[in-house]
């Protein structure tokens, strides 16, 4: 049965290959496979996204159905207002501080831990579950723990005694964002460990075996086999943690009660929320969103250049 059905389509494909190949590509069935996803994006996400871009060029205001309020086209005004707002600039700086700490830490820690988890032979289930737990626990609980540790009278300061920073961690303009970065790294690590774990499965054991035979020690094997072997996963981890970090909203909000000391932990999305929903200026919020997306895009492209590792 397999032979007859297989011969049929194959023959047809090769026969029409030259004709359709030029127009639709070598496997036009790909269009069919990807169609539901594209339909989903178009029906569900394209409109709000396009609308958001539209709003960013207008002095927009959400009104009840049938109510007409002037929403004039204002060109680049919203963008200018956003880019010259010191609070916005500060929020982008905060994001940068966050990413600089979070992304490398995430990549290194998750790879090292995933590697260790992959090799360990005992208590596998216990370890995997424990690293995954912060990720599935709701923010409200993990924030409570973190505050218990880092508040002015918290555990960490009690242990540090006279070395405790003053003002304390989360109300300190220069320490607030780094503390949040470490918190988020810890919370999200489970996700990235999973990604690396899956990627590690694709490195054939033979490579390690032959390297051992050649006399390479564990560290050399790690640096020369494992790290290059998961390069595409590394790019994935970098890009995803960048996107998550740039779009962060709940964590700084919960940990520092809003935007933190002088906006030192305000995230761009928090500002979008304030301007768009609380203050009723969705045009400004949309402009900020567009700038944010462009920024993230740029950073992702740079990361791709640095890490590479994708065939096309």
């Amino acid at each position, binding site marked *: 049965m397999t032979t007859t059905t297989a011969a049929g389509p194959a023959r047809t494909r090769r026969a029409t290959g030259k004709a359709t190949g030029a127009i639709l590509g070598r496997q036009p069935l790909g269009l069919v496979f990807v169609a539901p996803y594209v339909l989903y994006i178009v029906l569900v996400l394209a409109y709000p996204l396009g609308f958001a871009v539209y709003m960013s060029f207008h002095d927009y205001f959400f009104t*009840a159905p049938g109510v007409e*309020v002037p929403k004039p086209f204002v060109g680049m005004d919203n963008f200018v207002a956003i880019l010259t707002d010191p609070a916005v600039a500060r929020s982008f700086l905060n994001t940068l501080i966050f990413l600089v700490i979070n992304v490398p830490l995430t990549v290194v820690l998750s790879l090292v831990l995933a590697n260790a988890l992959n090799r360990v032979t005992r208590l596998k289930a216990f370890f995997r579950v424990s690293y995954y737990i912060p990720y599935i626990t709701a923010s409200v609980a993990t924030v409570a723990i973190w505050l218990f540790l880092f508040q002015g009278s918290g555990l960490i300061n009690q242990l540090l005694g006279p070395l405790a920073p003053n003002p304390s961690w989360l109300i300190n303009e220069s320490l607030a964002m780094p503390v949040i970065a470490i918190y988020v790294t810890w919370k999200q690590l489970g996700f990235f460990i999973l990604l690396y774990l899956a990627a590690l499965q694709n490195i054939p054991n033979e490579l390690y075996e032959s390297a051992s035979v050649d006399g390479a020690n564990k560290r050399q094997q790690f640096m020369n086999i494992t790290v290059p072997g998961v390069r595409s996963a590394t790019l994935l981890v970098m890009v995803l943690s960048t996107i998550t970090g740039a779009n962060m909203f709940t964590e700084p909000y919960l940990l520092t009660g809003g935007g933190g000391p002088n906006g030192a932990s305000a995230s761009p999305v928090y500002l979008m929320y304030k301007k768009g929903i609380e203050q009723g200026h969705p045009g400004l919020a949309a402009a900020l969103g567009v700038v944010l997306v462009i920024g993230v895009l740029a950073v992702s492209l740079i990361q791709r250049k640095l890490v590479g590792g994708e065939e096309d």
Partner: protein
Amino acid sequence: MKRNSLKIAAISGALIFAASMAACSSNSPPAGGNAGTTGPIEIWYSNNKAEVTWGKAMVAEWNAAHADQQITAQEIPAGKSSEEVINAAITAGTTPCLIFNTAPVAVPQFQKAGGLVALDTFKDGAAYIQARTGALADQYKSSDGKFYQLPWKSNPVVLFYNKDIFKKAGVDPSQLATQADLLTAARKIKQSGAAQFAMWPSPGSEFYQSWFDFYPFYAAASNGTPLVKDGKSTFNSDAGKQTAEFWKTMYAEGLASKEVYQGDSFADGKAAIAVSGPWAIDYYGDKVNWGTVPVPGLTASDKSYTFSDAKNIGLFSACKNQQTAWDVLKFATSPDQDGKFLKTTGQMPMRSTAVTDYADFFTSKPAYKAFSDQATRTVEVPNVNNAVEVWQTFRDAYSKTVVSGQGTVADMLKTTADKIDQLVAAK
């Protein structure tokens, strides 16, 4: 290279889509609702336990008497989420007829969006409100002189003090008559170590936090002046300066905490004084041995002003049976229902004659008497354009100068007043 052009293609695709969609979106159907029709309606109330109890009883009573105008009621959580929900609902035209617990600060925005119905459109609208609430009702008029909200209940804030901590520190509540006195008392409390902090209002940077530290004290100091009056900021004044300096000193000397406390610092005995309203009576209950004094002004007075922390009721334009909604509104704020509300929740209905009308309640629960008197002298959030942004601007500047101690109070007040004047004047 190829990637970049593809991304540009994706973005431009979205833009083209945007333009076409936006063109379509302008053909929206007209707002639902007819001021004269009656029929079933939907209402939302807050999810405060006591309010829900009262709400359910009120709805049951109405439904029993009006088979053809049934109310369906639902809770919404208060706070951040309710803004998002109400805004989204207005835009989609899916708001209920009445939302109990509409925040006065949100009313200008809802009104601008066309989401609220002016209660003046009902024949007895304005008259009813004035008769029930008296002179205080004027603070709730919008700039066009109409009422887009019905002033419902207030929680005038006062100072709750911990009697045990005071005793330990050797402080007497009569020593809290003026701001200066309060400062001295606070220092005494800190020195004695009776409490971690004298006061612990939330130092968070959300726009509404000023309503529980700066604003009540400013109301007392300025004899009942709202933040913005007749389109101009009022706080760049002596009263404003003194109040801001008072708080700046509190933070600078470690008498108030710069960190947000998870939970209630007063209930947990970490703060000696809390700024709260009558809803807290049930909450503090017997957790703390508490007493209350009015918020002190600059000079001793027994007729001081404070912040009202009022929540009102809005009638939304998506409502189909607006006459019923208005009738329910009158029912829910009738003398009978106001009394039941007071007894169930302890919050003050904004009825100008509440003190005498419910005299037996206040005799049986003397703790609330002080509040009923205070409720006649309250200041509300000013009903101006961009109200939320106004408060956010104020809070940002306050956080920087008063809480974190950077810059001078005089500069802060001047710059902020200018910014707020611009916001209020803008559309």
